[in-house]
């Protein structure tokens, strides 16, 4: 919403400075977004008089002028054709910045003659495009500031333009008068009365207006008057200046009048060219399919139920949104119907949205104009039309009634103080509301008709607080509900996410936050379907909610590869979506590693990452978030994993804590990732809740007797899982075997096709007496037997 200071002063009698007004506006909730004060850039220009002007000795088109200025008589060289003795001019002294030529004036020599300043044209001061010569003022004293002269003689030129942001609850502030009312309530002046002398009716118009029964809820009131014999044409200068100042293009007087009242009083109007209207006006609902060429020169097809104004030939106006081109005013218009109606905000909002029209009228009606002011709106407009464009006015035509919006809410002044936390005296509270147009009867406050937003006691609190100024609010401590050391507040899930993040970073992975969106093809690769599709995606790259975190991470890895970073380790903690119902999301911790463990380096530690890196990552993260150490590793995960190179980390066949493995080469190819790539996914919420125990640890058992380690190598079929062998060995003598580790694997070679050798170290920890050779041998035999039984393998000779 834009307006000018002088426009505001039409409604507000005030001594306040521009800065005071700006501060108050923002503080009141009418946030100032910008101010353009032409006076600022003209403040250094002063008025002078040319005493003498003679031709420059060395240039035909230049004149050497002697000018009386605020700094005494100065010699100024001027090239303007109208520079001559006796004229009153505007001077830029040396040091003055001239905006139109983006230059700061300096003393200089022009063709050998000194010049001490400049006489300016309108364009040079950005007042207009006029540049045929320098300004000749009809009045003005030497030394007077040019801005002061403008303020007195041509105020529109120095009228500051203020732009404020209007929150959706304040339709009343979409008119300059409403803004003035807020400022007056704040104490920045007094409201000037708003009155209009209605133009007496001088004839009886024939046009009749009816509102269809089923449309009264959307258009309870429609008013108008006919004016005949008007002379349309350009608006008077003051009106053109006003509209231009706020960024509107003056069109013709009859159109400008409607725009003026839209911004002046938040009263959108429409003016029909009556000579183009056939028969009477009827407000009704569209049956659907009717078309209308609107003022924006586009044709709209109406949907059933949308409100229109029709004449006998059909729809002529999109009610409350935009008039029709057919019956719009032109330069030739002489007879008009001036419309002022009240349209239901919700119906206007839906129609405007459906037709995708953003007009000033829709903007205002859907926020809510003052219904009670509807009839006066006609009188204001008709008065202005007749005064300026002549003609005579008909009787007042009205269909429907002013809707009753009267309501009152209790002002609980103590509750206001309690909610705001500021000592606002009860009297001041009442005064604020009254200044805003509320009427108080005891503690009941009746809401003015122009404030549709006020719908309860809480709204009264807001009005009082706003006028009192929230800037003055002082913080008041809010102690914790319990004294003493704060208790921990994180849930298990929240703790797990934090610890997983920091563990993953400690493992050398970089945390990413990738979009929750993914493209359809990538979603499909990872088991997603259209059940998590967006209706209105911002691009086809972001059309679905991600079914897994992995595709986004792989795309991120591909982008890094494209930038030349080939060794990538990324992870993310976040939600993945299985559908589009609230709650169809799960937390995942996912990571990928691609390339080598690091750049090649002198110690030779760099190597290609593989499945076992991903497994180590997954195991470290699971350990960090408190997963049990004893898990099963099963195969059979989803198709985006390499079928032979992945494992599901499970507690039983249905309880999956995580997956690790190599990604399927086809998936990598589709995502433009140069593979191979390994990765993992962990479902932190699948990890069982820790059993509630005290912080106390179990006692440490550290036997004094020395442990014994023995190595075994078995030849087994190549597809035997190492874990099966390890578990078999560990189960051979439970009390004695403390640990079994695989320390070597050898495949094929001398063992023959389809065979491999697995070497294990078994650590025996006696608890009562040192082991004898015989006992150790016995355990060894048991281990061999168990392993043979479990794997079919034999001890390697």
């Amino acid at each position: 919403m834009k307006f000018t200071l002088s426009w505001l002063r039409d409604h507000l009698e005030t001594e306040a400075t521009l800065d005071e007004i700006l501060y108050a506006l923002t503080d009141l909730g009418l946030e100032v977004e910008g101010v353009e004060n032409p006076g600022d850039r003209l403040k250094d220009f002063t008025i002078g008089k040319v005493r003498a002007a003679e031709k420059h000795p060395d240039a035909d088109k230049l004149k050497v002028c002697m000018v009386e200025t605020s700094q005494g008589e100065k010699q100024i060289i001027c090239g303007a054709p109208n520079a001559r003795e006796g004229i009153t001019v505007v001077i830029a002294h040396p040091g003055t910045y001239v905006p139109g030529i983006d230059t700061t004036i300096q003393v200089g020599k022009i063709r050998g003659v000194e010049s001490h300043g400049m006489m300016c044209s309108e364009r040079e001061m950005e007042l207009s495009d006029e540049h045929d010569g320098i300004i000749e003022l009809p009045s003005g004293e030497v030394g007077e500031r040019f801005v002061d002269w403008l303020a007195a003689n041509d105020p529109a030129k120095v009228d500051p333009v203020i732009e404020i942001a209007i929150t959706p609850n304040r339709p009343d502030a979409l008119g300059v008068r409403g803004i003035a009312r807020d400022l007056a309530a704040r104490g920045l002046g007094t409201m000037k009365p708003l009155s209009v002398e209605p133009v007496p009716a001088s004839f009886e118009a024939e046009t009749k207006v009816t509102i269809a029964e089923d449309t009264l809820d959307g258009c309870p009131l429609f008013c108008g008057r006919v004016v005949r014999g008007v002379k349309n044409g350009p608006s008077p200068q003051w009106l053109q200046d006003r509209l231009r100042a706020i960024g509107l293009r003056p069109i013709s007087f009859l159109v400008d009048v409607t725009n003026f009242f839209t911004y002046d009083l938040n009263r959108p109007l429409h003016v029909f060219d009556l000579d183009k209207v056939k028969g009477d006006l009827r407000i009704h609902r569209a049956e659907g399919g009717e078309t209308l060429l609107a003022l924006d020169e586009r044709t709209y097809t109406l949907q059933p139920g949308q409100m229109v104004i029709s004449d006998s030939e059909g729809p002529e106006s999109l009610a409350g949104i935009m008039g029709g081109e057919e019956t719009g005013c032109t330069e030739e218009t002489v007879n008009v119907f001036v419309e002022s109606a009240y349209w239901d905000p919700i119906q206007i909002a839906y129609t405007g949205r459906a037709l995708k029209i953003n007009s000033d009228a829709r903007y205002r009606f859907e926020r809510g104009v003052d219904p009670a002011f509807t009839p006066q709106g006609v009188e204001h407009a008709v008065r202005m039309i007749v005064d300026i464009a002549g003609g005579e006015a008909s009787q007042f035509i009205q269909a429907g009634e002013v809707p009753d919006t009267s309501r009152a809410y209790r002002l609980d002044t103590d509750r206001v103080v309690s909610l705001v936390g500021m000592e606002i005296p009860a009297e001041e509270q009442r005064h604020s509301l009254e200044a805003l147009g509320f009427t108080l009867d005891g503690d009941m406050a009746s809401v003015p008709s122009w404030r549709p937003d006020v719908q309860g006691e809480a709204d009264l609190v807001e009005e009082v607080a706003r006028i009192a100024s929230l800037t003055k609010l002082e913080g008041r401590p809010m102690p914790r509900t319990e004294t003493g050391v704060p208790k921990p507040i994180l849930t298990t899930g929240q703790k797990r996410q934090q610890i997983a993040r920091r563990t993953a970073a400690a493992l050398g992975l970089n945390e990413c936050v990738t979009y929750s969106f993914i493209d359809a093809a990538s979603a499909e690769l990872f088991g997603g379907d259209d059940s998590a599709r967006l209706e209105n995606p911002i691009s086809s790259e972001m059309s679905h909610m991600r079914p897994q975190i992995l595709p986004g991470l792989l795309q991120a890895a591909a982008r890094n590869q494209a930038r030349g970073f080939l060794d990538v380790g990324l992870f993310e903690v976040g939600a993945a979506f299985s559908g589009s119902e609230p709650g169809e999301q799960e937390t995942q911790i996912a990571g990928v590693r691609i390339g080598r463990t690091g750049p090649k380096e002198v110690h030779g530690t760099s190597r290609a990452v593989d499945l076992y890196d991903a497994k180590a990552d997954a195991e470290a993260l699971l350990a960090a978030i408190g997963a049990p150490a004893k898990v099963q590793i099963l195969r059979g995960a989803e198709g985006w994993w390499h079928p032979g190179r992945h494992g599901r980390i499970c507690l039983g066949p249905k309880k999956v804590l995580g997956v690790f493995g190599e990604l399927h080469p086809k998936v990598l190819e589709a995502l433009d990732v140069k593979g191979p790539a390994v990765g993992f996914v962990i479902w932190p919420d699948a990890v069982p809740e820790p059993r509630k125990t005290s912080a106390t640890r179990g006692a440490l058992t550290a036997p004094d007797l020395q442990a014994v380690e023995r190595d075994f190598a078995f030849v087994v079929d190549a597809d035997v899982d190492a874990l099966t062998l390890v578990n078999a060995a560990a189960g051979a003598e439970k009390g004695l075997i403390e640990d079994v580790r695989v320390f070597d694997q050898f495949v094929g070679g001398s063992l023959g096709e389809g065979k491999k050798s697995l070497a294990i170290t078994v650590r025996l920890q006696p608890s009562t007496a040192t082991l004898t050779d015989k006992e150790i041998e016995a355990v060894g035999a048991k281990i061999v037997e168990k392993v043979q039984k479990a794997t079919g393998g034999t001890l390697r000779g």
Partner: protein
Amino acid sequence: MDDLRQKYLGLIAEASDEAALEALRVQAIGKKGEVSLAMRELGKMSPEERKEAGPRLNALKDEITSALTAKKAALGDAALEERLAAEWLDVTLPGRPRAQGTIHPISQVMEELTAIFADMGFSVAEGPQVESDWYNFDALNIPGHHPARAEMDTFYMARAEGDNRPPHVLRTHTSPVQIRHMEAYGAPCRVIAPGRVYRADYDQTHTPMFHQVEGLAIDRDISMANLKWVLEEFVKAYFEVDDVELRFRASHFPFTEPSAEVDIRCSWEGGTLKVGEGDDWLEILGSGMVHPKVLQAGGIDPDKWQGFAFGMGIDRIAMLKYGIPDLRAFFDSDLRWLRHYGFSALDVPTLHRGLSA
């Protein structure tokens, strides 16, 4: 006897290795060594002579023994020094690489927020990112026709054919978590709810996904003045400054009444933000007293309870605090960016240590 002493001390000093020393030991104080033989002669002496020569011979033996030990140690040291000198390595070669990962600034800032608000008695609430339009709008006093709905650039989830329920939305703010929390836990309560939110907007300063933190405090007599204090304390703690001035500006949000936008005093001198000084104001959040209709929607009696709520952009305050220029880069996962703006694994923000120490 002095000859013996001079002879052996001299030979020991000149010995070049341990073997030579051993030979000297045998030669001097071994069973048949010169000193031992001389001691055997003591028996043949007169008591007076013996009384004089005995101690001297013993002293000589001790002296030679010490000299041998000392020389042996000296030879050992010399050998070690020689070996160490030969074991020279180029210490300017790099150490074995240890992988260094990073924490994303969003996560770091979320932990900072949690640390600060936990100290003021707030816990952390969560809610789904796909929301029903009731939780995202209606319950927050934003009915279907409200202009705020159109202004929010909402993402809608597609409905299956024949499913005529109103479409679910991607939550446009973290405010629906207020409702879910009130429904589940009632009053009194104090929570923050950080998380992802979505709006259909993409340009220099907007991304279709970003992060917000919601705050909610409900009790019998919580006021807007309490809200201001909480936010002042938060801003001081978060930006790690001793003092800061907050400006509350009246505004409007459908779910709070009264509503205020909150600015902090700052300066942008030289392009860097300094919080708490200067003449500029920086808008950082929207807030207000929870609207009675919102309390009702959450199942809380607005005649008995009142409180405040606020919502703040996490990405934005992360950019402000850490001088990160471009929002879009947050979600691009450029390794250079992650390493530059990320945080080390052990850099856990706590109040006692300092958030960004």
